[in-house]
């Protein structure tokens, strides 16, 4: 843990990229020491902002107050770990087999994940991933691949985020990368970030999962693409009312 622990300072000031953030938050969920350290360092940086205080334009106040008046505050997080199974468990998803390169990922079966995180009840300061995983309305969709790999997408409308958890994921073809997408009704497939090349990981998808219809994974050239350039190797359908 020493290596990842060293990232606490950079994480506390958001000086990490998405991949590092996902890795560190996975670690943070189980490391009380890092939780305490991050919290204490954020107390320090919070005070730093005293040196940059500046008066916002008066009109901004009106805009902010007008906007929040139209938005419902989220309910508090209650008893993490006592996650109720979602009433609606959309399990419809399609797995589109990819032709050549990543044939290793051909699926053999699908199933609902066994929630390995459900017993994780430690008093964490909830990371973004945890907020989704422990949200009362968290919904899960899992895909099993025939080489033992498994991918689970958990999304929560109340948190507005989706998280992907992978196990034993094979590396993508050389020079390629797994890219995540959210299927947004208004704009189609929108990039939700690149997956780190690591078999087991937990990663928060960028973008608003509450409005998305589905999440997908494609194989893209290193660096990622603005739009999918290949068929998805996996699609996780959030259900029609999501």
């Amino acid at each position, binding site marked *: 843990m020493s290596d990842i622990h*060293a*990232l*606490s*300072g*950079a994480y*506390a*000031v*958001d*000086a*990490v*990229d998405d991949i*590092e953030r996902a890795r560190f938050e996975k670690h943070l969920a189980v490391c009380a020491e890092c939780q305490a350290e991050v*919290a*204490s*360092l*954020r*107390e*320090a*940086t*919070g*005070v*730093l*902002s*005293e*040196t*940059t*205080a*500046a*008066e*916002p*334009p008066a009109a*901004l*106040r009106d*805009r*902010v*107050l007008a*906007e*929040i*008046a139209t*938005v*419902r*505050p*989220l*309910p*508090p*997080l209650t008893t993490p770990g006592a996650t109720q199974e979602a009433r609606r468990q959309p399990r419809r998803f399609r797995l589109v087999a990819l032709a050549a390169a990543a044939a290793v990922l051909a699926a053999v079966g699908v199933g609902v994940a066994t929630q390995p995180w459900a017993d994780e009840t430690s*008093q964490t*300061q*909830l990371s973004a991933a945890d*907020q989704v995983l422990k949200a009362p309305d968290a919904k899960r969709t899992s895909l099993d691949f025939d080489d033992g790999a498994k991918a689970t997408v958990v999304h929560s409308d109340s948190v507005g985020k989706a998280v992907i958890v992978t196990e034993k994921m094979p590396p993508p073809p050389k020079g390629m990368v797994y890219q995540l997408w959210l299927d947004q009704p208004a704009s189609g497939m929108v990039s939700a970030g690149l997956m780190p090349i690591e078999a087991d990981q937990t990663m928060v998808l960028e973008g608003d999962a509450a409005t998305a219809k589905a999440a997908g994974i494609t194989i893209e050239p290193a660096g990622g693409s603005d739009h999918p350039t290949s068929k998805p190797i996996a699609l996780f359908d959030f259900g029609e009312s999501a």
Partner: protein
Amino acid sequence: MDRSAEVAPDLADLLRRSGRADEAAFAQLYDATSRRVFGLALRVVRDPAQAEEVTQEAFLEIWRTAGRFDADLGSPLSWLMTITHRKAVDRVRSAEATTRRDTTYHHENQPVDHDSTAEAAQASLEAHRVRGALAALTEVQREAINLAYFGGYTHTEVATMLDLPVGTAKTRIRDGLIRLRDAMGVGQ
């Protein structure tokens, strides 16, 4: 969070009430903290129009999640500034991703401004105390924190900008923050 006038109201109480959709409480919260929120956003994104947008995004997020603030995990101010900072950083990074600037951009137009933390400073006692604590850092720690926190750069970018071996900047950031924390006596 005690002595400066603009954070005098009980922020935790205002957050609790905001979580119950109390718009008047939220307006008080805004009045008590908007200078901090806007100032940090402005410092990170630098463009005033974008700083306003980031401020608006941050306050919307604060409103939506106010009911989830947990005083056991940190102070209200720390929570507010964490949300603000993340919004600001997301803004500069996504702007960067879309413009795909030349990879050497930071060598050309990113001066390492040693004293930038002082430039917009208010003449408050608290700010004075913070600057005192910053002055106690090593130069590399101070620059690394400055670029990471106020510049919105990743530790890898900071390492390049400061000509540090990869992997060292994160250590400088952490060491510096710990020193800062201890010097200011917060977060213990």
